[in-house]
């Protein structure tokens, strides 16, 4: 007979077996506070209990990796004694319940992950996913999420420099909000979340603790039901001003040399920070809750330990030097109080006015969390293999191109990114709307390129191949701007892992990412897993999102758009191959055929990598006037996008191909980059050296896009007509009634 009813245990989303494990670890029944602590630490969100086994397959080492997974963020050496910290995090569940605050606190959380390590955040990117915009609720969610990100990032003073935004019916009841952040610091000034030094004081800094966000982590680990809408108090409220103060105060306090370890209070708040810091250092932490600054009266120990109030940090200082730390926080007008100390017994001991309310070995909480090898069968694949009958649409190619340019996934996202401050800190060399964002590092001659990417359609058809294609695309984005991809972070958004066919999606996707990241030499340095993205039994498509960073020498960026007329247009990598089966995941299939079938495009990773090497050399030798990578919408869309520059330079393209016209124009085969150049000979030489094709497909020309095959005109349009569809579509979709 346990101390708690089955209902109480179930409410904490602990299974009977997990409860029994708690009892055996403690050697007794847990207290109510302890039950709460276990429930958050052993939640899917904090413990990765369903995914941990498979995450081990990811490559995490590399010569530039200073810190891999397991810390608040991964760290990469960028040379000249500087390093970058970066990670991606999801805030999917809160953003569905309260889009504005859910997204805002998502930004706040990932920013704290970065600056808790001592790095100053210098860039944010976001990859939201929404249901189609013909549903009013999806429009409201999008507007809320965008204004939440804008509110938090802009006020904090970090530029939002890129990302992507995709729409699919599977996100109707379950939008995704994945936010990536990156920060910079000196290599020898990295801070870790370790509670080292027995007797050192444990100090609480930042905002006061309230009742908000209690059980946020367990909420993020369950499916949505009708009742979830009642969980609004679980969503935290963000205060970007407080976060900005916290950033400045933490970085300044770190300079005193009195800080031993520091960790932000994110998911599972005070619980997670105390036990993880103790566990990492092999120490214990003892705190008294009466010392914790509180926003409300009458909070129970349970509530204080589980609160997810934002903008709080826990740090361990050198004993006797507390005042140096307090002085800095006082200057910034922030609360900083000693709430406990580091002990040598390895136990998280929580007191309330001296009375012990929880006493748990740190390691049991952090490292003894359940680990499940969940059964996985064949990935769930609700799509036919065979292609539907594709009627001849040669006469409609121009109309189809315009329709695709105006579709929600492909159209310009300017309406979104103009709400983000993309230029604060004056480091943005290439901002939103480019293949890869570029941030220069003022302190060195290096710039960081970064790309966020996902393709859930490909992953639904084949999670393994789809995931590899995503990694390839990110690396291609980076190479297109001349950067060498060096490291990655991933956000694995999936449905319910207790369903074997969903678990199979997760497993195959991780294995695909592992294989591709090993091949492209971009080790995973951290990330996030978001499971149970299901509403009323309806799961999302398998939606891994990759964030990959690359390094390049600082200099003016190569633009994406054509710059001058009468330049040769080369398709590096060649026209690619496609058949009806491999066409089923494309945007053409989605927008024009309204279908999803077959397999994702074929990826030859070896060839892909050679294309990356070739384009980097081309950009490095300044042989290209413009470069643009082919992705959603294939060559047709890439040609149009390259024509939408300020100088209105379009193209005249002449093919000699036997492929079906829609395959040629819109297939999404990888390993291809559009280049305009005044030096076609040199580009062909470089391509040959790397063993890749470089096909001349036409020349640039003023104000028109003309595409023909064997003298049959497919597209012949003024740029204005194409551009209008692309540029105004999102606003039109948002303002429909």
């Amino acid at each position, binding site marked *: 007979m346990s101390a708690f009813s089955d209902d109480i245990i179930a409410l904490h989303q602990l299974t009977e077996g997990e409860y029994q494990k708690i009892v055996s670890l403690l050697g007794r029944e847990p207290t109510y506070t302890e039950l709460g602590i276990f429930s958050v630490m052993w939640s899917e969100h904090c413990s990765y209990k369903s995914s941990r086994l498979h995450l081990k397959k990811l490559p995490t080492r590399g010569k530039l990796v200073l810190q891999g997974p397991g810390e608040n963020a991964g760290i990469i050496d960028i040379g000249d004694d500087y390093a970058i910290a970066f990670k991606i995090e999801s805030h999917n569940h809160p953003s569905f319940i309260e889009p504005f605050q859910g997204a805002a606190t998502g930004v706040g959380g990932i920013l704290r992950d970065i600056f808790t390590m001592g790095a100053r955040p210098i860039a944010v990117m976001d990859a939201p996913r929404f249901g189609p915009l013909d549903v009013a609720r999806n429009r409201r969610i999008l507007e809320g999420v965008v*204004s939440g990100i*804008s509110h938090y990032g*802009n*006020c*904090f*003073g970090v530029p939002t420099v890129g990302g992507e935004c995709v729409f699919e019916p599977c996100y109707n009841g379950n939008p995704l909000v994945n936010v990536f952040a990156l920060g910079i610091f000196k290599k020898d000034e990295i801070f870790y979340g370790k509670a080292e030094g027995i007797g050192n004081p444990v100090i609480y800094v930042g905002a006061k603790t309230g009742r908000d966000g209690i059980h946020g982590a367990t909420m993020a680990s369950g499916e949505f039901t009708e009742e979830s809408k009642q969980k609004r108090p679980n969503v935290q409220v963000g*205060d*970007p*001003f*407080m976060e*900005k*103060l916290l950033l400045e105060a933490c970085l300044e306090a770190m300079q005193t040399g009195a800080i031993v370890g520091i960790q932000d209070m994110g998911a599972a708040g005070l619980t997670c920070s105390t036990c993880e810091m103790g566990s990492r250092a092999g120490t214990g932490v003892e705190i008294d809750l009466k010392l914790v600054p509180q926003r409300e009266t009458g909070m129970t120990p349970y509530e204080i330990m589980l609160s997810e109030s934002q903008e709080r940090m826990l740090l361990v200082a050198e004993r006797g030097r507390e005042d140096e730390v307090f002085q800095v926080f006082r200057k*910034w*007008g922030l609360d900083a109080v000693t709430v406990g100390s580091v002990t040598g017994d390895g136990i998280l001991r929580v007191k309330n006015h001296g009375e012990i309310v929880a006493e748990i070995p740190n390691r049991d909480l952090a490292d003894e969390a359940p680990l499940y090898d969940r059964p996985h069968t064949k990935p769930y694949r609700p799509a036919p293999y065979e292609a539907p009958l594709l009627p001849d649409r040669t006469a409609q190619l121009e109309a189809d191109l315009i329709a695709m340019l105006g579709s929600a996934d492909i159209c310009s996202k300017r309406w979104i*990114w*103009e*709400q*983000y*401050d*993309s*230029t*604060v*800190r*004056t480091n*943005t*060399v290439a901002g939103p709307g480019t293949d890869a964002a570029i941030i*220069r590092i*003022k302190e060195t001659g290096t710039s960081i390129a970064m790309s966020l990417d996902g393709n859930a359609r490909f992953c639904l058809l084949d999670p393994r191949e789809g995931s590899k294609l995503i990694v390839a695309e990110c690396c291609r984005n980076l190479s297109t701007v001349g950067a060498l991809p060096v490291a990655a972070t991933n956000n694995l958004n999936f449905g319910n892992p207790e369903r074997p066919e969903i678990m199979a999606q997760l497993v195959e996707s991780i294995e695909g990412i592992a294989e591709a990241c090993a091949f492209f030499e971009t080790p995973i340095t951290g990330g996030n897993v978001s499971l149970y993205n299901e509403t009323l039994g309806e799961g999302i498509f398998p939606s891994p999102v990759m964030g990959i960073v690359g390094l390049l020498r*600082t*200099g*003016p960026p190569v633009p994406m758009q054509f710059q001058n007329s009468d330049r040769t247009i080369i398709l590096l990598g060649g026209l690619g191959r496609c058949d009806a089966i491999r066409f089923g995941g494309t945007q053409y299939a989605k927008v024009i055929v309204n279908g999803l079938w077959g397999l994702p495009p074929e990826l030859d990773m070896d060839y892909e990598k050679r294309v990356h090497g070739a384009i980097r050399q081309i950009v490095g030798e300044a042989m290209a006037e413009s470069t643009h990578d082919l992705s959603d919408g294939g060559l047709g869309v890439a040609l149009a996008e390259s024509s939408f520059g300020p100088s209105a330079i379009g193209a005249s393209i002449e093919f000699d191909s036997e492929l079906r016209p829609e395959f040629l124009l819109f297939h999404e085969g990888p390993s291809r980059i559009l280049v305009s150049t005044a030096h076609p000979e040199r580009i062909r030489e470089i391509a040959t050296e790397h063993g890749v094709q470089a096909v001349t497909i036409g020349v640039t020309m003023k104000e028109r896009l003309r595409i023909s095959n064997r003298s049959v005109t497919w597209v012949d349009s003024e740029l204005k007509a194409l551009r209008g569809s692309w540029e105004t579509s999102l606003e039109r979709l948002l303002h429909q009634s």
Partner: protein
Amino acid sequence: MRFGVIVFPGSNCDHDAWYALTHNLGQQAEFIWHDSLQLPAHLDAVILPGGFSYGDYLRCGAIARFSPVMGAVKRFADEGGLVMGICNGFQVLVEAGMLPGALVRNKGLKFACRPTPLLVETIHSPFTSEATKGQVIHLPVAHGEGCYVADERTLDELESDDRVLFRYLDNPNGSMRDIAGIINKRRNVMGMMPHPERATEVLMGCTDGLVVLQSVVQFAACLAS
């Protein structure tokens, strides 16, 4: 010359202004904390940078105007010192009554970040003397509350006194008469919503902000000689 850059809690373009002045214009610049009751001696100009002073949860700049340092900034201006408010700094100057009018929510209700073409309306100011009248410069805007409003008489007066420094050619926020930047009667205190410090280097995509900051440098140099 020596610039002072005021740092309010929540300022986030303070470092950008400092960087532009020191690295891209070769001037001296120092940060001044908001609780300073006095400015350092020998300053030639003070910049109130962009950001969200004190969070700006109330009207933008409404709390910063009470900041201890603002008394010192006022005295500095009263003595003829050059004061430049950029974005949030403009909002603070307006709230402090050092410039007329008000800055309210953008007409589209949304934050707007984009490069914006501006017409230089007058070169008779320490902040535009190096430009040419009618010159078009491109500077980024990045604000949610940059819609300049004032009563008709004030607007008429600004125009007849030649105190409108910049006008938007592509008004991003609904500002009355497309006003992007103004100067006080004494012509030593100016405010503008666009960010000249974000356009001072080829890598920033544009160098049109240099003409604004160089005007200040030239003006101070003339005063000194």
